[in-house]
């Protein structure tokens, strides 16, 4: 299985999502690449181009012949214009720099990434990089007799072209707009164990014996020496999906002394909140059981078409009294 490149189970909150519909009709949420990552990738590529050019110039100047010097000039032109095209075609929308930052070019509409899109998105690099740079550093080179008011205007215009990615949510630069492409981040997420599958606990409808319960006979725990914790329906109606997934994150974190203290604090909080009074021999096992029971409960509600987003949502009377509390009281923050 592939390596984890992000804290497992955690959805990074700051990422921008680009939703596209695949030709199969399934919506996919892609993570828009961060501007900083793209800049880093570009700088890596630029350094490679620069290094290659210097190398060619150095080798050709060794020969000292003009024919070979001109080779250097052509090499510079080819590298400058075709390096990106070559790699983005060859490596499915990535270059050396993009690979190192795990970025990738895709068609913004969700279609096939075409050769001409790759060509076009790289033809506009001049007006995005060199033109703004020249305008900032040496405006007189471009427009020698510019009137005094024109320089700042031209500089501003160059900045707008160069900083275009910062002006739209999808971080598309001019070339992306012209070619209809965009750059996404492609982190790899590993599939971790299913917490609910290994839990020993069960949920019963013991408190409220009315209504159907899918988990009636659960908890027999034939393979387990110890019968797990049992939660009532009312106790499972306190929290919502948000709290469940925060709890998942906590349970998936690597164990440490600090973590153990947090687990104890969370256990106290949950017990107080749902009114669980039986003895708790082991914090982690208790929380895992609670997680499994809570997930089973929420998922069974989900299948009935009731999606309870967090503890403030929903119609359960048990949750109503907490609604007055200001702010979110996450179980994960202890």
């Amino acid at each position, binding site marked *: 299985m592939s390596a984890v490149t992000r804290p*497992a*189970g955690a*959805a990074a909150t700051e990422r921008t999502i680009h939703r596209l*519909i*695949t*030709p199969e009709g399934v919506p*996919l*949420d*892609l993570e828009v690449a961060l501007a900083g990552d793209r800049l880093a990738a570009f700088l890596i590529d630029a350094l490679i181009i620069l290094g290659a050019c210097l190398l060619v110039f150095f080798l050709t100047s060794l020969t000292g*012949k*003009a*024919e070979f*010097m*001109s080779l250097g*000039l052509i090499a510079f032109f080819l590298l400058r214009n075709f390096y990106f095209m070559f790699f*983005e*075609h060859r490596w*499915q*929308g990535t270059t050396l720099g993009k690979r190192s930052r795990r970025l990738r070019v895709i*068609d*913004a509409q*969700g*279609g*096939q*990434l*075409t*050769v*001409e*899109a790759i060509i*076009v998105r790289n*033809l*506009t690099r001049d*007006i995005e990089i060199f033109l703004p740079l020249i305008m900032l550093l040496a405006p007189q080179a471009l427009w020698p007799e510019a009137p005094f008011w024109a320089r700042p205007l031209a500089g501003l*215009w160059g900045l707008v*072209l160069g900083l275009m990615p910062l002006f739209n949510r999808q971080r598309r630069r001019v070339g992306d*707009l*012209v*070619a*209809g492409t965009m750059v996404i981040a492609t982190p790899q*997420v590993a*599939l*971790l164990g*299913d*917490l*609910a*599958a290994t*839990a*020993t606990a*069960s949920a019963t409808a013991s408190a409220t014996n009315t209504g159907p319960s*899918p988990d009636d006979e*659960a908890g027999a725990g*034939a*393979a387990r020496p110890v019968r797990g914790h049992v939660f009532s329906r009312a106790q499972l109606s306190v929290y919502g999906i948000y709290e*469940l*997934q925060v709890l*998942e994150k906590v349970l*998936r974190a690597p164990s440490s002394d600090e973590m153990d203290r947090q687990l104890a604090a969370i256990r106290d909080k949950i017990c107080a909140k749902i009114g669980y009074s039986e003895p708790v021999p082991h914090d982690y096992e208790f929380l895992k059981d609670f997680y*499994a029971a809570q997930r089973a409960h929420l*998922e069974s509600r*989900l299948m009935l078409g009731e999606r309870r987003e967090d503890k403030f949502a929903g119609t359960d009377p048990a949750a109503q009294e907490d609604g007055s509390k200001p702010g979110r009281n996450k179980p994960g923050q202890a």
Partner: protein
Amino acid sequence: MSGFRMKSVEFRREREKDWAELERLIAEAEKKGLQNMSARDLAALPVHYRAALSSLSVARAISLDANLLLYLENLSNRAFIKIYGVRHRLGEVFLLFLNRRFPAEIRAFRWLVLLATLILALGAVSGYVQVMHDPDNYYNLVSVDYAQGRDPSASTEELREVLYDQDATFWGGLAHFTSFLFTHNSQVGILCFALGFALGLPTFYLLFITGQILGAMSALHHQHGLLLEFLAWVFPHGVTELSAIIICGAAGLALARALVFPGRRRRLASLAAMGRRAGLMVLGAVGMFAVAALIEGLFRQLVHPVPIRLAVVAVTAVLWAWYFTRVGRAGRLDPAGPVVPEDRIVSEGRPGREGPP
């Protein structure tokens, strides 16, 4: 075996193997590339991709396991990218481009090509008239670097010397000169196209001043009675080079038109559709700049008789005219080639209909 009978747990238990298999296929494709995968793996990839998409849809509906959802989302994304990545081979695209797409695009954009030609011609007339009227205007139109001594203060002899440059006969200098011409002109042409994004005004400007420089220099040589020699000096490569500049200009104007008058499409969709077509024209123009630079760097410096130079002008003009008007006519009837961006973007929001490989 836990006593739980949660649907999401069972669902995961059943499908987990498929996901692992897809992950292996993706890793394989990343390592070897799609072309080098075994036939069985290649055939399995889209099947497992669709299975993963279906798993994702189910998981979204029944599971609250955040890690599982994120994983499936991520797995589907990676498979999607593999399947809808670049598929066509460069050589294939290149050939199709040369004998069909490029001339067909030029014909499709003929009004913009005409407009660009007109702007260039207007610039030339304006430069010519200004310098004929007052030779001092020359200094305003042509920069000192570019003129390299060819200004109103130069004598007829000096001007003639440039036209029949005897020094540049050694091959090294020629090659250097050629590569400089090629890279410089191509870069200007690419700029001309890219500036179309700025609503086309800079493109107009670049075309116009290019024309002005040409006009001003013609006027200068005319005043010294060297007009024919000058034209025979400029146009052997000039036919090709000016055509390329005009094509880049037309491509830039096409971009600007797509931005300003998007028609019934959304502005960005219109820009993207036009951008891909116009960008190809620029690439063709870069090829033309290479041809022009070869003519300029090698032929012009070595062959001096005016009649031969004029003959080359005629030959290149006829060749390009033939290429742009006649070649690839059948291409318009055959939209099934691999390069058909246009109709893909017309239907808004509806992504490509090409299936996975």
